């Protein structure tokens, strides 16, 4: 076993709801340590009252995202060495979501908007029918595939200042999902989707800040997806369909 050679000073946001403050802890520094490990160490050995959330611990469930040194990240796959160059490590709950306690946020608004964006498959066939033939090389399919691996971690949602300012804004992840469905040959709700993303909180509020694409841990590009929606809605409007 590698003995810890040194400790690292870590500030963690503590508090319930809107109030709180940073508190500091000295955490042993190990090789192979992720930010989630640092948080877990504090809860296991220093302050058992620390609250946070994780599940899969390998970047699949998207429930461990936090602000690490001011930037939104999944913590289970973020190696401490990558973010603590100057030996500072400041960990806070994910931005733009209500805090439940300490590092755990309430993700409901994020998912409510997901549904509001009609980012839900609109079925065009039943379980009694064959599965549709879809050519993987088809141009539309490629557009749909581009954003399909989203793990709904809300990192992009936290990176976006439009989300911060505009309470209705559906946000990059939900819009990207809507765009994916819009390009899915099997989706029967194209018009519904276009209408859902054209309202007061819709895609037209995006200012192309690009934080979403910059921070997406899966290297997806919601900004491009939103541009796609803007184009599609513009076209529909010119054709008198919106």
């Amino acid at each position, binding site marked *: 076993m590698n003995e810890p050679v040194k400790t690292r000073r870590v500030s963690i946001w503590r508090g319930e709801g809107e109030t709180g403050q940073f508190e500091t802890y000295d955490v042993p520094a190990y090789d192979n340590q992720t930010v989630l490990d640092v948080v877990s160490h504090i809860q296991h050995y220093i302050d058992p009252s620390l609250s946070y959330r994780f599940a899969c611990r390998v970047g699949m469930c998207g429930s461990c995202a936090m602000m690490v040194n001011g930037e939104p990240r999944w913590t289970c796959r973020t190696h401490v060495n990558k973010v603590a160059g100057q030996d500072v490590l400041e960990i806070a709950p994910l931005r733009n979501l209500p805090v439940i306690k300490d590092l755990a946020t309430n993700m409901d608004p994020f998912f409510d908007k997901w549904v509001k964006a009609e980012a839900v498959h609109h079925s065009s066939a039943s379980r009694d029918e064959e599965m549709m033939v879809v050519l993987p090389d088809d141009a539309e399919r490629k557009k749909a595939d581009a954003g399909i691996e989203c793990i709904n971690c809300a990192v992009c949602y936290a990176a976006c*200042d*439009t989300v*911060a*300012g*505009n*309470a*209705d804004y559906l946000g990059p992840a939900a819009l990207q999902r809507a765009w994916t469905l819009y390009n899915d040959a099997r989706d029967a709700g194209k018009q519904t989707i276009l209408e859902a993303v*054209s*309202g*007061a*909180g*819709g895609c*037209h*509020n995006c200012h192309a800040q690009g934080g979403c694409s910059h921070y997406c841990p899966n290297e997806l590009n919601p900004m491009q997806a939103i541009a796609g929606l*803007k184009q599609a*809605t*513009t076209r529909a*409007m010119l054709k008198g369909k*919106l």
Partner: protein
Amino acid sequence: MLTLRLYMLQRITALLMAPLVLGHIGVMIYAVQGGLSAAEILGRTQGSVFWFSFYGLFVLAVSVHAAIGLRTILHEVTGLSGRLLMFFTWGTALGLSVLGMRAILAVTFLTRGVS
């Protein structure tokens, strides 16, 4: 808080303005290079239907464009929405166009006071 309609309005006015503004800058560079005085500038613009429409169009476009832009910022910074936000938007647009129109009339149609 932009809906598709406001978005289109902002983009269309932007597209309209782009050539107008670039044209205006061009004229200004030319004018300044030629060392024109105010009187000389006005001499060329006064009574010109072309310049009236050129600047008139700009004023209308910019009023709408800037109003929508400021509306977005106001909403994102203060959270203001609903009726008040609407009044702000169209109030700004109206205010800007009135100011702008007065200016254009000054430099195109209305005769100056005795100098």
